[in-house]
């Protein structure tokens, strides 16, 4: 069966520090991968998506970047965090054989 792992679950980082959030998928190949950010009362905002290794598309300009070094690995990064980067980050995947998206458990990022 397919599973998705996302870590860490919680992270507190000072302003100006780097960030690396990791997401891995098991049990499927060549999935589409997505990073969403969730802010209270604003639903889920798509940040990045990837249709294959090394292929990243950004939906909104921001202080973050994403990479896909392996088929089932998706990384969200920042060189210097801003206070406004605080939020709940969710990784998700979809494949052509599934209609729905499957989500990780999320990372609560607090920038202080």
């Amino acid at each position, binding site marked *: 069966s397919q599973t998705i792992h*996302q870590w860490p679950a919680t992270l507190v980082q000072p302003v100006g520090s780097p960030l690396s959030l990791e997401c891995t998928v098991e049990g499927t190949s060549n999935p*589409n991968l*997505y990073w*969403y950010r969730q802010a209270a*009362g*604003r*639903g*889920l905002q*798509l940040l990045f*998506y990837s*249709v294959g290794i090394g292929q990243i*598309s950004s*939906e909104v300009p921001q202080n973050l970047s994403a990479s896909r070094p392996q088929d089932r690995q998706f990384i969200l990064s920042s060189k210097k965090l801003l206070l406004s980067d605080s939020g*709940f980050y*969710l990784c*998700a995947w*979809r*494949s*052509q054989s599934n*209609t*729905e*998206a*499957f*989500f*990780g*458990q*999320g990372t*609560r990022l607090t920038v202080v």
Partner: protein
Amino acid sequence: AQSVTQPDIHITVSEGASLELRCNYSYGATPYLFWYVQSPGQGLQLLLKYFSGDTLVQGIKGFEAEFKRSQSSFNLRKPSVHWSDAAEYFCAVGAKVNYGGSQGNLIFGKGTKLSVKP
């Protein structure tokens, strides 16, 4: 523009009462429609989905939803709410992955928070 509207930010119902959460969408192609539930600090769990066929779909935990194309709606219902249903509910719309150039990303509403009174 593609969008999902959940007009109710917060709903409170008594345990055992019926529930209906509203969802309206705007989407250019034939949509795939979803309802997800999120407990505090957790990821999203799929409740049910619609992509074709019978417009009344059954999901987990006793939930159902009805797709009404003429009204661009996909409302979620439950005949008798349990205290454990307290959570935030998200409606989402999307296309099939790689259909018409779609990358398969889902568009979400802003969510409806459900509180359940004992």
